[in-house]
Structure formats: structure tokens, C-alpha cells
């Protein structure tokens, strides 16, 4: 049986089919939640923003244009909320280092070596400038193409790739530093 595309499901939902929304949430809910979780390192805020993202999908269903891919539209909403949240944090003077990251994030790694590596990755991602971090999160974890990322962030595809390249270089340096630091401790 042919599986309905995201765009068909969204059109079905806009036409009154709530089961279509359940399917969309099943496909994208976890990805959106993890996007916020990785970007902000706080499970409660990630939950709030995930809920807000899908609420906007619900309330803006009639403005959705099927010509645009659903994932681009969804992540545009999510990234706008993320930017607002980061701006709000900055205004409140909160830092974005891993001291604010929930301890529950570290539970994802089963053994000690992986836990160390996970901590190094989390710190390295957190040390990226915001505009590089969002490209890496979308490219690596949300598996969006660079053309889609460009659409979501309102930049050119070349600029998206450049940011990703710079992000990878920064990550390499940060990871090496974190790795040496944690080895030095042990």
C-alpha cells in the first residue's frame, strides 16, 4: 500500500482528518523534540517548544502551502521558536554552557567511555556559534538536505554548506580539547 507523503497528510489534516496529524506527529515529533533538546540542553524547555511548534502547525494549517515540503515548513517554525528562545535567554543573561544541560541527557550513553565521548560531543556542539550549531543540528540529526536547510534558515545553499564546514572545523578543535581535558582528569 502506498504510504501517504507528509504533504498529503498535512492537506488531509487541514481538511479535517485528525488521524493524519497523529501520523505526522509520529513521524516528526521525536525529531523536533530532540532538535530542541540538543540545541538547548533542557528537557522542560524542549517539551514546551515542541508543544508550541505543533500548536503552530495546528493553528496555521490553512496557511500551509502543499508546494513547500512539510519538513521545511515544520523546521522553519521550530527554528524561529528556537531563535526566540535563545534571544530570550540572552536577554535574561543565561549562559549556554553545559552547566545548564540536564543530567538526563547523559543517560543516553550506556558505558563510561561512551558517556565521556557523549559529554565531549555535547560540550563541543554547545561551544559552536548559534548559526553554525543550527546548521549542524539540521544536517546531522534532522537529516535535511542543504537545499532544505537553506530554505529553513533563509540563506543560500552555499552559505549553509560554508557554515557546516566551519562548524565541523570548530567541532574538531572543541572535541580534541574536551577529549584531552577529560583524559587529563582521569
Amino acid at each position, binding site marked *: 500500500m502506498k504510504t501517504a507523503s507528509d504533504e498529503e497528510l498535512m492537506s488531509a489534516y487541514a481538511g*479535517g482528518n485528525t488521524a493524519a496529524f*497523529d501520523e505526522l506527529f509520529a513521524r516528526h515529533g521525536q525529531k523536533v523534540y530532540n532538535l530542541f533538546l540538543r540545541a538547548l540542553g533542557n528537557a522542560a524547555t524542549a517539551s514546551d517548544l*515542541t508543544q508550541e511548534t505543533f500548536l503552530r502547525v495546528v493553528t496555521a494549517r490553512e496557511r500551509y502551502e502543499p508546494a513547500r515540503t512539510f519538513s521545511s515548513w515544520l523546521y522553519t517554525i521550530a527554528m524561529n521558536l528556537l531563535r526566540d528562545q535563545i534571544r530570550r535567554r540572552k536577554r535574561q543573561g543565561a549562559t549556554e554552557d553545559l552547566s545548564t544541560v540536564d543530567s538526563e541527557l547523559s543517560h543516553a550513553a550506556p558505558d563510561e567511555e561512551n558517556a565521556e565521548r557523549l559529554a565531549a560531543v555535547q560540550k563541543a556542539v554547545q561551544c559552536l556559534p548559534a548559526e553554525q550549531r543550527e546548521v549542524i543540528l539540521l*544536517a546531522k540529526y534532522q537529516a535535511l538536505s542543504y537545499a532544505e536547510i537553506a530554505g529553513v534558515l533563509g540563506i543560500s545553499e552555499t552559505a549553509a554548506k560554508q557554515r*557546516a564546514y566551519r562548524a565541523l572545523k570548530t567541532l574538531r578543535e572543541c572535541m580534541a580539547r574536551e577529549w584531552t581535558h577529560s583524559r587529563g582528569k582521569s
Partner: protein
Amino acid sequence: MTACEKFQADLPALLSDEPTAERKAQLEKHAPSCANCAAEMSEMRAVWKTLDVWQEQTVPAPLAVAIREQARLHQPVTSEESLVVRVRQLFVQSPIRALALGLLTAIIATIMLSFRVDFSLIHPLGLTITGALWTALFGLVYYMLTAERDEGGLSWKLPAQVALIATGLFIAFTCLNPMPYSVQYCSANGPAQTFCSSLSRETAYCIFGGFYAMLPMTIASYFSAKKHARHNKIFRRGSLAALMFVLLLAPSVYLQCTPFAFGLLIGWFSGALVGAVIGGTVGYWVRYKFA
């Protein structure tokens, strides 16, 4: 661009398996011939792979329930019942319908202006051409309002929306207090009397025209702009909306200037252009900065 620069530019896409098989083969062929690029690729691959350690977590069950519940609470009406959907479908991407709506708007705007402007001074041919031009301009802007985003991601919707709202406000302001009356009043009364009376009529029309365009544009762009408007696009978006607004404004400016008063027409029009660009940019900027 050298082969190494091309390689670096495509490296992120290569890591996420994006390029076509042909391009991928080209890139991978380059790496062994260049020690730097080979080392770069191997290190970047390692970094990319290391990121896999950060696994996804499942959505907390209460959150999933709450989101599904909220979708049911806001259960959409069927497309047959939804007026908004039906209105959108009626006008979406149809030049004929957009033109019909443009004609309707031009008629309403002309009727509103007729309360304040003496059309008997205008030649019937001039009036007909102005009406046709206005219909075409409104039709074009309505079409832009409903057009799909093009492949490059350029959207005309927002500037078209701002231009239409600003034109509506401009006509409403004009009906309340036509600009020629304001120029006359300020030249004879009030604190700016000396200044205003010292200006030539063309200069006064230019300055007042600027303010009459700036005010509606500021209001329209502020309320239409998205809160997250990107800073580097504010001037571009403001100017694009201003340009559309000034085009929509042109027929009404012509109708309010007596025929052959080209000096007044040019003065007003140029003032309106500058005022609209300032208003559009300021509206977007205030929304971005403070909303």
C-alpha cells in the same frame, strides 16, 4: 575556484551522502591526489561519525498525549465548511480572479476618493486610463499575494500584503484629511506656518507626501512583519514593499493633483517614494528590535 576549494565547499554534503553518484566519485577521486584534502576528509568524517554518539531520546509520553489532544481540541472544520479555505481557493493563482478583485478594489477606492477630489477637473480619458492602471496594479498585487513561493524561496506575499494595507490606510487618511488641505492649512496656520509658507508648493508637496506615505507604511510593515524577521533583510523587504505601495499610490496621487500640475505630481511622488522606503524599513526594524 581551485579543485581543493571546490572539494571543501562540497565536503559537508559529501559527509551526509548528498551529492549525486557522479559528483561523489569526482570528489572522492580528488582526495587521494591531494594530501591536505585527504587528511581533511578523513578528520571531518571522524568528527561526523563521532556525532552519532548523541542518540535521540523518545518524546515523553505526557507530551505526546498533550500534543495529540491539542490537535483534537483545535479540530479543523472540513474544507466544505471553512470560509477561509474557500476564499483562498477562490483567488489562489488565478490572474483573471485577481484582476476582478483588482477592479472591485479600484472602484471602491475611486468612490472613496470622489468624496474629497473633484473629478470634473480631470479629462474623462485620463480618468479611464487611471482606473484601468489602478485595476491592473491592484490585480498584480493580489496575484502576488496568492502566488506560490518560487524555487529560489522568494516570497512576494509579505511585501504585497504590506503594500495593500498601506494603500488602504493611505486612502482612509486621504478621506479624513486630504494632503492638499493639510499643505494649505499648515501654510496659513499653526506653529510651522512660517516654515511652510516659505516653501514652494512643489517642495511642500514633496515633504507632506513623504509623511503621508511614511505613516501608513510604518504601521503596515510593523503589523505585517514577522517577529523573527532577519536583520539583514529588513531594508530589502521594506524597500520592496515601499515600491509596491508607491506604485499603488500613483493613480491616487494623480487624481489628487490637478491635471498638468506636473511639478506637484513629481514632488509628491518622489516624497512618497522616500517616505515609503523609510516607513517600510522603520516598521520592520521596530518589529525586529522591540517586538
